[in-house]
């Protein structure tokens, strides 16, 4: 493993020798995706410096929109949030695939992401970290929650939390037997689905303690026992599992929702050289394993799961038997305009008493 790391170090060094000057890479990413030790290694090997800004999908797009795609050199929005915002605001620029070492990626994931983020001839994103949305349950107390709609059961009244965001709408729709992804192309049909989900979520509101917003807020609520069931990210459930063996992530019966966070270049980024160097650096299996350890989620790096510690692997396998993996619903690209409909629905749910 040492020599492996050494070899890849040499590879990156020769690659970055092309860079005439050391650049500052302004990275717009999620918490945990750029741990300090990885940044230190990258800076030592390439001479570039890295400035990290932590954010989420909506904020990333809002920030880039405010500057017409400036202010950052590399962003990490989810793959379903590339094509729509690009069509609408033009905040990304096409990737030069010759600069990326595609052999570092899991081929199927790379192809899927490219397929979802290609506009015309241009590819706008490559995959980095993937994970799912599902149920985080305190299994010692909760026994009858198998799917999102079960969060509305009387047995967990007042002890439930989820986000008031689009994944919740999508998750509940699937759980109610509807097919929101199938209706992506048809605004009227999609509105019909949203109306049904809205009625369900309004009815369910009395069960909710509060809508969570950040990962730490959810963990806090779950650890204190104030909530016992939530719709949340798999990694949140696994991290809580370290503190309390009763709490774990469960893939819902209707299927976990799979997301892939990507690398995309902002339209007016200035340090492309450093951005490509970063992509090729963090996709190396050893580095990818370090990011998995920090973020809690697996990466699209070929062989990146080999060096991940066994505890996390065991949790992953317990939460995802093969049929649950096959049942993962991957987010297709969100067409421009759908989010306005979802926004109005979310506002009405928020306002309901």
């Amino acid at each position, binding site marked *: 493993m040492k020599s492996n790391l050494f070899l890849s170090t040499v590879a990156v060094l020769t690659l970055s020798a092309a860079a005439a000057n050391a650049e500052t890479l302004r990275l717009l990413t999620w918490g945990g995706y750029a741990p300090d030790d990885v940044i230190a290694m990258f800076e030592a090997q390439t001479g570039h410096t890295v400035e990290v800004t932590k954010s989420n999908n909506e*904020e990333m797009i*809002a920030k880039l929109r405010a500057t017409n795609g400036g202010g950052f050199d590399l962003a990490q929005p989810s793959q379903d949030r590339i094509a729509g915002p690009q*069509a609408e605001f033009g905040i990304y620029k096409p990737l030069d695939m010759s600069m990326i070492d595609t052999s570092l990626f899991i081929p199927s994931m790379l192809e899927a992401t490219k397929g979802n983020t290609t506009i015309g001839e241009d590819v706008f994103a490559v995959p980095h970290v993937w994970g799912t949305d599902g149920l985080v349950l305190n299994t010692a107390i909760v026994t009858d929650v198998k799917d999102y709609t079960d969060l509305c059961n009387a047995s967990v009244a007042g002890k439930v939390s989820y986000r008031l965001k689009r994944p919740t709408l999508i998750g509940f729709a699937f759980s109610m037997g509807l097919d929101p992804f199938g209706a992506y192309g048809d605004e009227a049909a999609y509105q019909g689905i949203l109306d049904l989900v809205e009625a369900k979520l309004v009815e369910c509101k009395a069960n909710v*303690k509060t809508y969570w917003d950040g990962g730490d807020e959810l963990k806090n609520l779950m650890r204190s*026992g104030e909530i016992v069931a939530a719709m949340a990210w798999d990694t949140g459930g696994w991290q809580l599992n370290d503190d309390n063996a009763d709490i774990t992530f469960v893939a819902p019966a209707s299927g976990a929702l799979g997301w892939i966070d990507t690398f995309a270049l902002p339209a007016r980024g200035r340090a492309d050289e450093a951005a490509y160097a970063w992509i090729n650096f963090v996709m190396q299996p050893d580095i990818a394993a370090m990011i998995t350890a920090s973020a809690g989620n697996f990466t699209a790096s070929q062989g990146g799961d080999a060096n991940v510690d066994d505890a996390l692997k065991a949790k992953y396998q317990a939460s995802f038997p093969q049929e649950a993996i096959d049942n993962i619903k991957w987010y297709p690209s969100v067409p421009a305009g759908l989010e306005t409909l979802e926004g109005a629905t979310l*506002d009405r749910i928020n*306002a309901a008493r």
Partner: protein
Amino acid sequence: MATDRSKLAFWLLLAPCLIWLVTLIILPHVGMFLVSLREKVGVREYETSFANYAVFLNEPLYWNTFARTAYMSIAATILTLLIGFPISYYIAKLTRGRTKTTSFLMCLIPFWVSELVRTFGWMILLRETGVFSNFLQYLGLVNGPIEMLYNDAAIMTGLVYTSMLFMVVPLVTTLDSLDDSLIEAGYDLGASGFAILREIVIPHAMPGIVSGCIVVFMLSLGNYLTPILLGGKDSLWFTGLIYSQFITRFNWELGSAFGFLLLGLSSLIVFVGLKLTGQSLGKTMAQS
């Protein structure tokens, strides 16, 4: 020559203020107003219209949210005044020297930490596994844990706490300037304590009350953190709507329109408030 020079001095002294006003307040507002007039008709296609304002009028949800924000802010202002007035009176009239400085400082100290930290402090106190709930259980007053967070009362507590200082400072200043002999004269002439409060203290303190109320009302109306964090799932606040239009819905056009409506409607409420109490902004500014 002398007039030229004084003119130059006038403009130079005014320049920072003008630059501030134009670049940081007027220009962004003009830009935002133009954005609010754009109606999205398709991908990257916009038309000029008042459609975004029509959305506000046609969707009762937005109206109700604004009304709720306004009346909660008014209630917060009145509560702050009711709590702040006795405190200010005590500081201004009943204490001297070091006690006065200390008690004034006590009102100030919470504002040395950021609003976020203060709000988190309230969350620690009020939550189900928090300090109050545990204390009540320890005393045996309640059987199980009780949730005091995520309701309107929690929002109100947070708002009053956050804006207390902005009521106390102008009130202390105006009450300080009230000559004690006027109050003594009132007692000499046989007036009751209530009559003195009504006839002497409150009329004198009116400019402080009005400016304090305006500041507290505007701060509450424009507050974002406190209602969102303390209100939880029922935290419907107009600034929260504006935030979500801008950030999570990418709908800047509607967000800008909401921003302008907030500006206009809040100014209207202050104007009506001044008219109802027979005060004018000029008088308030001149006296306080």
